[in-house]
């Protein structure tokens, strides 16, 4: 009779006629749901990710070409942790990949990750960018940088604190304060300065907004290009994506209308967030999962992060893309990532309290 098979098997080597049709993937999902047996790949690894498929596909394709291991993926945005938790011991997830340190730590807090000991990972990823027990690893970094009107020639340095100064009244554009990228920054502010000062800063920043805190980081550049505002905050890789023309000619214009300043905290460095991954607690292919993570911090993969996605590699000494290097020398703020993750709830509540997004 039919046998129960894990839902990650694929049809690529199965003798199933439909697999040659364009609807291959659909059929695999549906037919699997009926429990029909098919031949599985020799080695596979299953990746649940909140990173957009277009960003990680080049990495995964390179890995499959190199190792022969098939990587099955599902791009889940909100609810990754809930899904894996509900799947429980029978989850097919091997690796959970996400952006933002808060989201990464949540996977550990919810007991969805397992510790990994790997000399390769430990050698490649600096200690502040991974868990001491190996339950999470950062794979790439992005800085929260200042986008400014390129005509502001006097503006060559800035602090996050100064964005609340009255000189910027009606001149700042930002995305929602409840977006993880901003919440993490506010959380870092909170760790450095305490609740009272952070609240005052948020109120000042709110008063400086030229428009509602909404949209995405690229909208900040676009609105600066349209003279709606003069400065704003955005992630570093968007600058690369816009200026390289990868997002189309319009975005290239936005990218060129702004100049980028690497802001710092007073007496500190530039706020940096990470993308990272954990090995799932119930990983059915644990060994393959570790191997894929090790690949992702190899020189080859870190170069892809840098050159295709314009992210800062985590591996010490790995080259960064010239476009990114042209933004200036990055001095990473030393606020521990774990502290930032632990304070994000308080930061998010503060955003509500000052009515930042209203």
């Amino acid at each position: 009779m039919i046998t129960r098979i894990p839902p990650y098997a694929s049809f690529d080597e199965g003798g199933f006629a439909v697999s040659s049709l364009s609807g291959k993937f659909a059929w695999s999902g549906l037919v699997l749901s009926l429990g029909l047996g098919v031949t599985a790949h020799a080695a596979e690894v299953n990746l649940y990710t909140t990173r957009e498929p277009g960003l990680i596909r080049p990495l995964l394709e390179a890995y499959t070409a190199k190792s022969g291991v098939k990587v099955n993926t599902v791009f889940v945005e909100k609810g990754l942790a809930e899904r894996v938790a509900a799947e429980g011991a029978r989850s097919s997830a091997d690796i959970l990949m996400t952006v933002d340190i808060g989201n990464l730590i949540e996977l550990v807090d919810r007991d969805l990750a397992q510790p990994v000991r790997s000399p390769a990972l430990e050698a490649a990823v600096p200690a502040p960018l991974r868990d001491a027990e190996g339950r999470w690893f950062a794979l790439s970094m992005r800085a929260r940088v200042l986008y400014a009107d390129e005509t502001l020639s006097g503006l060559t340095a800035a602090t996050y604190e100064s964005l609340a100064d009255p000189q910027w009244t009606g001149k700042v554009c930002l995305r929602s304060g409840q977006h993880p990228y901003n919440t993490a920054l506010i959380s870092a502010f909170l760790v450095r300065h305490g609740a009272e000062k952070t609240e005052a800063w948020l109120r000042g920043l709110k008063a400086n907004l030229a428009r509602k805190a909404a949209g995405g980081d690229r909208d900040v550049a676009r609105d600066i290009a349209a003279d709606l505002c003069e400065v704003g905050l955005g992630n570093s890789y968007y600058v690369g994506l816009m200026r390289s023309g990868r997002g189309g000619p319009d975005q290239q214009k936005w990218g060129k209308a702004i100049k980028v300043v690497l802001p710092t905290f007073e007496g500190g460095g530039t706020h940096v967030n990470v993308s990272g991954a954990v090995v799932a607690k119930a990983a059915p292919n644990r060994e393959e999962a570790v191997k894929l993570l090790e690949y992702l911090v190899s020189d080859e993969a870190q170069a892809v992060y840098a050159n295709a996605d314009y992210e800062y590699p985590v591996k010490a000494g790995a080259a960064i893309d010239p476009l990114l290097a042209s933004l200036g020398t990055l001095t990473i703020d030393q606020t521990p990532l774990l502290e930032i993750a632990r304070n994000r709830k308080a930061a998010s509540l503060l955003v509500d309290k000052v009515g930042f997004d209203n």
Partner: protein
Amino acid sequence: MAATRGLGWAGAAALAALLLSPVISLGIAALGGGSELWPHLAAYVLPQAIRDTALLLAGVGLLVIGLGTGAAWLVSAFDFPGRRVLEGALLLPLAMPTYVVAYAYLDLSHPLGPLQAGLRSLLGLSSPRDLPLPDLRSLPGCILLLGFVLYPYVYLPTRALFLMQAGTLLEAARVLGAGPFRSFLRVALPLARPAVALGTGLALMEALNDVGAAEFLGVRTLTVQVYATWVNRSDLPGAAQIALVMLACVVALVGLERLARGGRGYAGSARRNAAVTRRRLSGWRAGTAVALGATPVVLGFLLPAGHLACEAWRRVAGGGWPDTLAVQTGNTILYASLATGVTVVVGLLVAAAPFLLSARAGRALIRAAGLGYAMPGTVLAVGLLGPLALIDSGLLEAGFATVSVGLGTGAALVIAYALRFLTVTVGASEAGLARIPHTISDAARVLGRGRLATLATVQIPLAWPAMLSGGLLAFVDIAKELPVTLLLRPLNVETLSTFLYGEAARGTYEDGAVAAVLIVMIGLVPVTLLLRIDENAVWRRR
């Protein structure tokens, strides 16, 4: 006989359990947290979020009722050149996911976009600063956008109603001396109330549950707050609490509307149902009619879709077709077709439950069928995670080790779609069944037909146009659905809407635009069919 009914009751009970399961699972999650979130919400969040949500719903409600009934009346009561094209074109905004329209409009209406740039060059201005126009990223902007995209939910059932049964009464009104405007307000609109209520309800739930467009346009609805609580604070209990309170409000509002409509019967009589006789317009009157009717089509569809098509063309001309599109198109059509089939059949049975089982239980089941649509898609999907996992382990323990319908399978996705959109097909089947004069079904029963046989041989043949139009509407909804698909689909399965979202999220808009155009094209097929069905239904009646 008795065995069939027993089976029917068992099926109804199982379905009711499934329909309620996400709410129960959210309830359990909500109980996992304390009440400490509420003072914070009451002090800092609710005053603004309730105000914005109420304004959004009131604005979108007025707009969809105005546009939907107005357009339905225009094409039903008048004849003018281009009317038949317009009849179909007015449905087109249905094919567009709202968040995609929001993306497109932000491109179009931005100071750097073609509309304002064109206006500036017309006025001889160089900088956007010289021509400050209101920003789309605002509550009024969001109301306009959602109103022009969602009005077909009202237009579709209202037009069908005008076509099917308004004729006799309107003729009476005309004989009694009422002009076209007066007969619209005093006769047609009250007559159309169930259809308007059904459509407005669907449109308002879409508006309330929307996050994409609201987040993009900076409108802080209660739904956005659910996500901030859940995603940004890892506070699932708190988020579940807010979601359940919102759900309770929606259920109460729907109940109030039903109550206000009271026990008024809207069933047609067995004879003399006729479409409205259209008044022929010419000259400037015809021109005005065309202009009025075309406005929602242009704003709700042609402009954003045209923009997408341009973007898509740039992408295809520059780099060819994204290589995965064929598979994604296949997935979209396949899942939407399967889920539509399930949704239509279950929807018909639910709509007929008052007749098949008992009036009271049937009505309860119909109301439960509305739950999946009354909450945001992601909330439904999260609520379903537990129940789906439970089904799987239940099957495993019961010894069915060979069957898996649980999480991460295509079957789970189909179940979730059906729960989400069941109300669409139930509503349509209900409307279709309600139009059948009681005398006809009664006659079949008196002549000895069983209930199921009466349904199959008498009621379905009479109600099929309504059922099918419900199915087509569900198909369009499923094909463009995003949040449930995103969270529940199996590994390696990408649909057009998840692909589009992935591309839009990372800012490679041109790649996504091709998928968006394909979603619209897939949506166009059922939209075109929807019109045929109504025409046929009228023809058959005559």
